[in-house]
């Protein structure tokens, strides 16, 4: 029974309800923020927005790539010769970053393939199609420069070593993916087939990376990315890192340009189909190469 001014002081359910509602409000705010993030990410992935952003980014990317290459090449020839390899060590400054970029390009393609298969996003299709020839070119550089280094150091241009063989397999996978893109005419069907093959082929990336640890190989083990830290002297490590940055920037720059080309190619194809369906005779003037995706 309550007497006079005595009022019940409830700290139980009512305060718990207040805390609960505050938590719900915070959760709602959180979801809204996530929703906004998703919206902005989707907006960035829109091909039209990509073209606008690419136009603004490309001059900066070209500038930074040229600067990084100039600095990296200076470092390559300013670095001291190796006590065992002599001047031949300079090949490493173009060989190792090519290998890293080749694996980076494939990893990027695998992520795009996932985006292509899960979200069916056309930009994901374009990004993986654009990355394949670039990745193949970097793998080719890695193989050829490695051969030129191997001849004076190992006495052979090529040995069927686990690392060399797995990189050759990577190159063949790249060629296979490029061929598959050309084989299927419909871009969305081609993207699905290529995405599956890309994800299956991704198994080769850890094999390339860890082949020198898993098997007894002629190729030397990892000397930069190691648990114990880098085994390379600082005067030789920094030019290597700058060259790796230059290669990565070149890949990003060329990739942005190639994605832009791919978006334009798809627009040309769509326009050509629309005009052909409308019975435009002028479409006959275009070569099949221009219309083909």
């Amino acid at each position, binding site marked *: 029974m309550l007497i006079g001014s005595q009022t019940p002081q409830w700290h139980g359910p009512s305060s718990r309800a207040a805390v609960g509602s505050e938590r719900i409000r915070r959760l709602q705010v959180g979801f809204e923020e996530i929703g906004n993030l998703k919206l902005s990410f989707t907006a960035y992935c829109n091909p039209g927005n990509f073209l606008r952003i690419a136009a603004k980014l490309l001059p900066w990317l070209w500038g930074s790539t040229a600067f990084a290459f100039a600095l990296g090449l200076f470092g390559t020839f300013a670095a001291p010769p190796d006590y065992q390899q002599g001047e031949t060590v*300079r090949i490493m400054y173009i060989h190792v970053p090519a290998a890293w970029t080749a694996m980076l390009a494939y990893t990027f393609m695998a992520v795009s393939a996932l985006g292509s298969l899960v979200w069916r996003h056309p930009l994901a299709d374009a990004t993986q199609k654009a990355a394949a020839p670039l990745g193949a070119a970097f793998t080719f550089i890695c193989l050829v*420069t490695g051969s030129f280094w191997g001849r004076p150091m190992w006495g052979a241009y090529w040995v069927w070593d686990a690392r060399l063989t797995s990189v050759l397999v990577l190159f063949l996978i790249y060629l296979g993916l490029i061929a598959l893109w050309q084989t299927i005419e419909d871009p969305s069907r081609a993207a699905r087939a290529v995405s599956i093959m890309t994800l299956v082929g991704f198994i080769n990336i850890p094999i390339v990376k860890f082949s020198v640890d898993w098997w007894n190989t002629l190729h030397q083990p990892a000397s930069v990315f190691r648990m114990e830290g880098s085994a390379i002297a600082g005067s030789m490590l920094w030019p290597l890192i700058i060259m790796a940055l230059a290669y990565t920037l070149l890949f990003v720059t060329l990739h942005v340009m190639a994605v832009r*080309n791919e978006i334009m190619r798809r627009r*040309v194809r769509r*326009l050509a189909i629309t*005009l052909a369906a409308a019975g*435009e005779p002028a479409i006959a003037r275009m070569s099949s190469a221009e219309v083909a995706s």
Partner: protein
Amino acid sequence: MVQHGGFIVAAFLVTGTVLAGMIAAVLIDYRVQHRTLRHLLLDHSDSRGRI
């Protein structure tokens, strides 16, 4: 004379050629696509730029 200089020069030449080739290929492709797209848009659009 640098020991194994020929291999070093060959490696740098191949790398430079491949990188330059990549850049040229992407630029030529851009030119082709841009010209084709412009050709299609100019020849088949109305005064408001619609196809």
